[in-house]
């Protein structure tokens, strides 16, 4: 039986392309070519190219897909599609079954995240359901797994108007991140997500409560960027309440100062527009 080896990883053109920390244009083109391969050709190639059925390749692709998520979601989707194909081609004997299922779930999750970013909520939900199926089969619990997928589902629910379920899911995810995985960074993200839903709903007092809880952990973590976002959102919430203009202005001015300090021009421009 052919076994996966680090040598094989180095010699395959696809793993050569995706092995680095970032994908340049030509490296992305190599991934795109793989996405465009017809199924029959893919199956043929996967037989003699171990990289096309390796969990390591899937992990690399998922990493790149996540990197492109906020920058170029279309690319993120294409990369996730290739990850799904490779994850599906994993073989028993080469990868432990539970790990293989977990990788398939992660690939589908990356795909769902890309579709959500492109506002294709219908297909995103389908991808979420498929990912959930593989997570259930895998029974491996990781922070980047099921609870993170719940956050994607929560976003889809929030966008379709079911904010109550979205909040419940996100709050559960935040609790899981903290209690089960001790993943404080993801916990802050989940709480910030909750706060933003509440802000959108004009439930300002509850939003400030959620922001305070997020700020507490972000401060402990030394997460300057997240704190800048939190203090900016607190400013919006205070502005929304109506009788706290001075406090609101104080928060917004401090957020501006922080974004300047961090060198984040896009966030700065958005904030300055509202001042």
């Amino acid at each position, binding site marked *: 039986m052919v076994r996966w080896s680090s040598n094989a990883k180095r010699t395959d053109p696809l793993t050569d392309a995706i092995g680095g920390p970032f994908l340049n244009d030509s490296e992305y083109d190599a991934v795109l070519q793989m996405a465009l391969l017809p199924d029959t050709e893919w199956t043929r190639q996967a037989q003699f190219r171990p990289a096309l059925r390796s969990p390591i390749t899937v992990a690399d692709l998922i990493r790149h897909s996540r990197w492109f998520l906020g920058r170029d979601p279309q690319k993120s989707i294409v990369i996730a599609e290739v990850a799904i194909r490779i994850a599906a081609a994993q073989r028993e004997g080469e990868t432990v079954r539970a790990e293989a299922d977990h990788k398939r779930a992660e690939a589908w999750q990356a795909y769902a995240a890309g579709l959500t970013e492109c506002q294709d909520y219908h297909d995103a939900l389908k991808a979420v359901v498929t990912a959930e199926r593989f997570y259930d089969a895998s029974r491996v619990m990781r922070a980047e797994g099921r609870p993170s997928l719940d956050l994607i589902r929560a976003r889809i629910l929030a966008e379709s108007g079911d904010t109550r379920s979205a909040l419940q899911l996100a709050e559960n995810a935040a609790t899981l991140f903290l209690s089960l995985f001790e993943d404080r960074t993801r916990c802050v993200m989940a709480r910030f997500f909750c706060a933003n839903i509440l802000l959108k709903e004009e439930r300002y007092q509850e939003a400030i*409560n959620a922001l305070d809880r997020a700020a507490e952990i972000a401060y402990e973590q030394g997460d*300057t960027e997240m704190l800048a976002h939190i203090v900016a959102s607190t400013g919006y919430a205070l502005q929304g309440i109506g009788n706290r203009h001075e406090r609101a202005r104080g928060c917004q001015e401090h957020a501006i100062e922080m974004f300047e300090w961090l060198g984040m021009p*896009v966030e700065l421009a958005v904030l300055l527009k509202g001042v």
Partner: protein
Amino acid sequence: MASRTTEAPEHPEVAEDITVAQRGHHLSDVKLARAAGISPRHLREVKRGSNVSLRIVKRLMAALQLRSIRLGDVMQGSGSGEGVSPEVLRMIAHAMRQALAPVLELVEMLEAYGEGKSTAQLEAKARELVRDAHQDVTAERDEAQPERERSGATKTKRRPKTAKRR
């Protein structure tokens, strides 16, 4: 030599693209300059179509989320031919500005530290602002609660005044 104000703009397309995007974002000159981290004088130069450094244009593009910008006819030459070519002077000025850029950034950083700014201080102030906002809102809600109870809006047991949390 022609005065500065009567000079034809050298990069009208850049000026136009920046101005249109600025209008689209409803940002004033001061706010846009601040967001891009450049001086308002530089912004005025860009909007006048002057020959500014690529670094400034890129900063403005980032602030305005512009993925591309028109550069005009890149084959067109410039320069008066009288004495030293203005283009040469501009190239020298540009090269000097590029060379000074890291130094100027360092100066800005030193000024910031001189003002007592640091990441830890910014974080601490952010935390304090959010905590204050939370306490303020919570205190108001707690104050409003006994008010409602006194007016008979709810039938729950009244909380004594001294038990108010602030």
